[in-house]
């Protein structure tokens, strides 16, 4: 195998693949180097996976909205923060040409105490059960039951709940639990998927919502889902709404814009997004340091041979070629186990957390390119040691 690669590289490089031969000559060092590169790759993949899961999970509830436009409070950066809106904005919205429907939606976070004493956090949406606020057929099929006091629908992807809970509800056995001094009856399920802040979602009627959260009032919903008349561009209606609604307390965006804004805010302003970004940087640094250590000690160990080649008449470009050849070999060979282990870890993390952690096709390519750049940078730093190879010192 080693010889086969050596022959292939020799054809590719048009010279003896000295970098490859040096690396494979010392198998222990090669294994340590590959482990280091693979570790850096895993670190980067995991951080990118978490960052991707964060971005994906932010978009999940938005994609469920049966709306093209979202009206929210002007200080709302995400779905879960911001002040309530005056209900008057709903009526103003309905009066704008091009709006076919609008519905007020309440939002709050609920702590759900489990029988074992642990707490699950649910994002609760309070909707008008006479309208189809969400696209989910499962939610819309149960709207009449939501009209009953203190009934709810729960996200089947809610984390850390008894395994038989959702099949039992699906089989027609409602589940009751206590929260905020009220007894809630879960009569059905739907599917969104939990994010980083909450374990899952709960959908209730606006009346149930106001009973569940006693400090909330009917005149102050959190957002308004707006449907646009067929044939009217959403951007046109957004402009009209912005003109009609005071920007002192409202912000009007298409749902797509709202998702992008929320994702941007959470990945650049919130600690969790920044931490993942730092994780990627640390992964790159680990890779650079590991590869530099390997390459620079390799150069140091072969200074006499390099000095001999200098004496023979090889120029600087030849030695740079060897070091970069080693850097590229390390990048490529370290990437393969790094990717394989990262894919395995993605599955483990997705299964244990319910986070939408997946490997898009472009990510391995980007990480590979980053790894090549990382190893090339390390190689460039390591080549400084080549200057010490003075052929006159050989005599």
């Amino acid at each position: 195998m080693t010889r086969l690669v050596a022959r292939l590289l020799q054809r590719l490089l048009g010279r003896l693949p000295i970098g490859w031969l040096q690396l494979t000559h010392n198998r222990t060092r090669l294994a340590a180097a590959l482990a280091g590169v693979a570790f850096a790759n895993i670190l980067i993949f995991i951080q990118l996976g978490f960052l991707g899961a964060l971005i994906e999970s932010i978009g999940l509830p938005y994609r469920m909205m049966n709306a093209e436009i979202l009206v929210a409070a002007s200080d709302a950066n995400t779905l879960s923060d911001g002040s309530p809106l005056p209900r008057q904005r709903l009526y103003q919205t309905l009066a704008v040409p091009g709006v076919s429907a609008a519905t007020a939606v309440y939002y709050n976070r609920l702590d759900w105490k489990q029988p074992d004493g642990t707490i699950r956090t649910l994002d609760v949406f309070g909707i008008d059960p006479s309208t189809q606020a969400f696209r989910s057929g499962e939610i819309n099929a149960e709207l009449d039951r939501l009209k009953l006091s203190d009934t709810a629908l729960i996200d089947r992807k809610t984390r850390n709940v008894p395994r038989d809970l959702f099949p039992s509800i699906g089989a027609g056995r409602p589940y009751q639990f206590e929260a905020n001094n009220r007894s809630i009856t879960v009569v059905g399920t739907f599917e969104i998927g939990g994010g980083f802040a909450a374990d899952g979602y709960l959908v209730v009627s606006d009346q149930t919502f106001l009973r569940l959260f006693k400090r909330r009032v009917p005149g102050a919903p959190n957002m308004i889902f707006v449907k646009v008349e067929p044939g009217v561009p959403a951007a046109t209606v957004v402009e009209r709404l912005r003109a009609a609604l005071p920007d002192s307390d409202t912000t009007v965006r298409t749902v797509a814009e709202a998702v992008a804004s929320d994702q941007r805010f959470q990945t650049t302003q919130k600690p969790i997004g920044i931490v993942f970004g730092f994780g990627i940087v640390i992964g790159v640094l680990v890779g650079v340091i590991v590869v530099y250590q390997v390459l620079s000690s390799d150069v140091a160990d072969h200074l006499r041979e390099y000095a001999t080649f200098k004496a023979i008449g090889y120029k600087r470009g030849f030695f740079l070629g060897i070091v970069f050849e080693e850097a590229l070999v390390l990048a490529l060979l370290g990437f393969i186990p790094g990717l394989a282990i990262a894919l395995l870890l993605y599955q483990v993390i997705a299964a244990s957390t319910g986070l939408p952690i997946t490997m898009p096709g472009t990510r391995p390519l980007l990480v590979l390119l980053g790894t090549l750049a990382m190893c090339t940078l390390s190689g460039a730093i390591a080549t400084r040691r080549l200057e010490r190879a003075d052929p006159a010192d050989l005599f």
Partner: protein
Amino acid sequence: MQTLPSIAQPRAQDEPPIVVSGLSHWFGEGDVRKQALGDIHLAVARGQLVMLMGASGSGKTTLLTLIGCLREVQEGSIRLLGRELKGASADRLVESRRRLGFIFQAHNLHESLTAHQNVRMGLDVHEGVPETEREDAAAHVLALLGLGDRATYLPANLSGGQKQRVAIARALVGNPDVIFADEPTAALDKDSGYDVVALLKRLARARGTTILMVTHDNRILGLCDRIVTLQDGRIVRDEKSETS
């Protein structure tokens, strides 16, 4: 004897390949500046095997590295293969070294390359040689040195004498005009040392290659054409060998 596939290189036919005149060299600066060579004059004819002898610190290695284009000439003149080295750029020194062969006291073979690959390194520095010709030349010169059956061996699996013969093969394979050898027998026993230098001389002579060799080894004096002795940076004796 077979000849190696040759690399077309111009050879200066009108003057000796090595002409040194008024050469002086110093190491260090200021108070610690020390003269290593003083007013050296030397001309070496084509095909000669010249041994540089002298005590440690006499300047023989400095002279070898200066003629071998491994140091810049400070004062005086060195004409190597018809070209002046004083004032030559670093690039031109490198280019000049491609027409030379080097054999070191420590063989300095690359540990991860086979004997064949190590020899090829002496040839790969030259451009425009077809791949098959490189392969054939490396195999041929190894065979000439009696190492045909060791071509795929790594240096770690070769004896001291075999390693030094691979180093000689590496120096010879590029068909150099001049070979510089530094104590090539130091790590070898008496018989191996003599055999290695005898072989080197035979192969070099067949191809008109000049050899400049630094040595303390009296056992191989009989093989040389000329002995130049240095003392305190000056040539104190320059004599033809009785056996030449």
